[in-house]
C-alpha cells in the first residue's frame, strides 16, 4: 500500500515535471513606445550568449532585447497591431554568409531599405551577412551585416556594450493581431550541420515570436 502510494506520487511528480518542461517559454517582452509614434524594439545579436544568460549553452549565438535599460535574454516580442514598429539592432557577431543569397536584399520594411551604421542600403553582400531578422509570414527579411573577423575589441559574451558592432535600423508596419514567428536565415549555429541546428532551432536564441496584439 505504502509502496503503491509512493509510486503514484512519484508518477504524478514526474508528470508535473514533464508538463512544466513542455510549457516553458522565454518571457514575453513588449516593445517600448517610440517618441515619434509607433513602438521601438531594441535588439542585439551576439556571437556567444555567455554563461550568465545561459548556463546550459554559453557558446550559442543569440538575440537579446533591451527592456528597461537592461538586456534581457528573450525572443518573444509584443508589438501593437496596425502600427509602425521601429527596430534598432546592435550586431556584434562576425559574418557567416547566407545559404540563399536572395535574403541579402532587404524586404518588407518601410521603403524596402535599412540603415547600416547610418548608410541607407537595400541589399548587402550575402557573404558578409551575420544574421537576419525575418518574419516570413509578414514578408519581412532584413539581413544583418557582420563585424569583420579582424576587428579589434570583438565581443566575447553578452551583453556586448562597448564592443565592436554594426548598428542596423529599419521600420515595418504591423497588420492584424496574431502570433507570428520570426527567425534568422543565416546558418550561424557553429558546429551544427548546415549551420542550422542548435540555436537556430531553439526558441530564445535565433527564433522567436512576434506577438501582434
Amino acid at each position, binding site marked *: 500500500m505504502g509502496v503503491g502510494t509512493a509510486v503514484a506520487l512519484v508518477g504524478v511528480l514526474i508528470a508535473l515535471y514533464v508538463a512544466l518542461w513542455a510549457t516553458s517559454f522565454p518571457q514575453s517582452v513588449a516593445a517600448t513606445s517610440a517618441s515619434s509614434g509607433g513602438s521601438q524594439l531594441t535588439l542585439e545579436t551576439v556571437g556567444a550568449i555567455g554563461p550568465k544568460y545561459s548556463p546550459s549553452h554559453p557558446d550559442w549565438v543569440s538575440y537579446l532585447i533591451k527592456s528597461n535599460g537592461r538586456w534581457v535574454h528573450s525572443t518573444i516580442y509584443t508589438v501593437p497591431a496596425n502600427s509602425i514598429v521601429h527596430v534598432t539592432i546592435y550586431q556584434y557577431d562576425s559574418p557567416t554568409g547566407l*545559404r540563399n543569397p*536572395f535574403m541579402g536584399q532587404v524586404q518588407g520594411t518601410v521603403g524596402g531599405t535599412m540603415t547600416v551604421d547610418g548608410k541607407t542600403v537595400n541589399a548587402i553582400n550575402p557573404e558578409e551577412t551575420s544574421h537576419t531578422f525575418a518574419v516570413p509570414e509578414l514578408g519581412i527579411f532584413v539581413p544583418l551585416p557582420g563585424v569583420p573577423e579582424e576587428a579589434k575589441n570583438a565581443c566575447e559574451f553578452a551583453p556586448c556594450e562597448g564592443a565592436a558592432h554594426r548598428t542596423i535600423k529599419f521600420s515595418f508596419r504591423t497588420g492584424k493581431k496574431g502570433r507570428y514567428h520570426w527567425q534568422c*536565415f543565416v546558418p550561424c549555429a557553429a558546429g551544427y550541420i548546415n549551420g542550422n541546428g542548435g540555436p537556430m532551432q531553439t526558441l530564445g536564441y535565433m527564433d522567436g515570436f512576434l506577438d501582434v496584439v
Partner: protein
Amino acid sequence: MSEPNHARRFGVIWLVATLIATPLAILLLGPILPPGNGSEQASEQVTDNTVLLAMATPVLLLVVIYLIYSVICFRQPKGGALEGPAVRGDARVQTTWIVVTSLLVLSLATFATVRLETDYGSGSGSGPTPLTVPKGPKLPVQVIAQQWKFTFRYPTYGGVETPHLVLPVGQMVELHVTSLDVIHSFWAIQLGVKVDANPGVDNVAFVRPTRVQTFEVRCSELCGIWHGAMFDYGHVVTPSAFKTWIHQEQVTFAPATKLLPPYSTTYVPNPTRRGE
C-alpha cells in the same frame, strides 16, 4: 423453430445497402472530395478518390453490416451454453473471396498506374527523370525549400527569385523542387501538388492550374522547429496579370537577382558547417 437462411438474408441486406450507398457516396461525397478542381492534376485526383471511394463502400458495408448482423443474429442466449456448428472452412467461399479480392486489388493497381502515368505524375514529385512528360510549352518554376520558407525562382524570367508563388491559369507548369538544407515537401493543397524537396536533388512535377484562385502552400515533411509555420499563399492569375506581376517582381528584386548564383536545378550552398 426453423433457422432462417442467413446467407440469403445477409446477402440481400448488403446488396440493397450497397446499391443505395455507393451512388450516394459518389454523387454526394464525390464533388466535395479533396483536393478540389484547382488544376488538371487535382481534378484527376478527385476522380481517383471517387473511384476508390466507390470500391471501398461495398467492402466497408460488407464487413460492418456483417458485424452488426452477426452480433444481432448469432448470439448466445442469456446464461446459455450452446455451441455453434463445427465448421472449419468452406473451399468455395475461400476461393471466391481470394479471386474477388485479387481482382479488385489488381484492377485498382492497374487503374492507379495508368492514371499516374497518363497524368504526368498526377502532381506528385516524380524525381529528376519523370516517366511521362507533357508535350507543349511548359513554364519552368523552381521551388527552393529552406528552413523555413519556400522561395520561387523563374528561370525563363531572368532567374528572378521571389518569396511568393504566382502562376498563370491554363499554363502547364514544370515545377523543379529542391532544398538547400533538410528534407521539406512542397504541398500546394488546392492544386493537388506534393513534391518532396531533397537537398541536392531536382524533383520534378507537372501541374496545369485551371482556375483563378488563391491556394495554400504548406510544408509537409518535418523540417525542424517551424515546420508548421512554413506556409504561404499562392495565387493563380490570368496570363496577362502574371506577365505584369513577374515583370514587377524582376524590378523589385533586381538587387537580389544580382546576388544570386546562376539558375541551376540543384544547389549545394556553403557553409556545410560553420567555421569551415
